[in-house]
């Protein structure tokens, strides 16, 4: 089994399968997952779907770098990051982060760290597609920039 995995894909993923995959290591007592979903409010109230663009090549590199940073801070047996791209209707999952550790505090902290850094350092861009068919690029949020402050 590949302990540290990064995938960028159009297809849906199965959170349960990914969690189970990291649960087979008998040294791991704690597995934490984060699912990010397309919500009905972002900048606007009438979002029907997202269009996700990324920078192929740099994306995978950035996600592996983020995982390396997490491994330097916490005891981490395994981690998976899956990020979808393309057209994602309301309610669909966008991103999955799974971390496995012997210690629940490490698994929690690493998962939150990976999400915070992914949101500010991985080259993905969301375009919101509204019910009337119009679309606009989502602006970066100051709160995401602030979120990484506490890890420094």
């Amino acid at each position, binding site marked *: 089994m590949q302990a540290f995995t990064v995938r960028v894909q159009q297809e849906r993923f199965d959170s349960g399968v990914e969690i189970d995959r990291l649960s087979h290591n008998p040294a791991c007592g704690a597995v934490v997952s984060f699912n990010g979903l397309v919500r009905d409010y972002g900048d606007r109230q009438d979002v029907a779907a997202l269009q996700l663009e990324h*920078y192929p090549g740099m994306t995978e590199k950035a996600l592996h770098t983020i995982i390396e940073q997490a491994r330097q801070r916490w005891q981490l047996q395994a981690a998976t990051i899956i990020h979808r791209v393309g057209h994602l209707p309301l309610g669909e999952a966008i991103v999955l982060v799974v971390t496995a550790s012997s210690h629940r505090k490490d698994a929690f902290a690493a998962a939150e760290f990976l999400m915070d850094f992914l*949101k500010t350092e991985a080259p993905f*861009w*969301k375009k919101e597609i509204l019910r009337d068919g119009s679309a606009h690029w989502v602006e*970066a949020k100051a709160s995401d920039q602030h979120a990484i402050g506490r890890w420094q």
Partner: protein
Amino acid sequence: MKLNILYFARLKDSFGMGSEQLETDAASVDELLTELRQRGDNWSCELAAGKAFRVARNQELVRLDAALGDGDEIAIFPPVTGG
């Protein structure tokens, strides 16, 4: 010196192109931006000094004083919004 330049998201839409090959003497990211701004219109507007955008050299984020080399892949894009 030849650069491979990539644009993403809002910048790709605004410039009407996702990539270009550029023959330039710009020695740093800063000098490259100055050259691009001289195209006027959307270029000067989107890449204005106060505007929020990021630059990656060979797929790693760099500061504006980063040096450029022949064959570098330079990407210019808005702050990321994934996850």
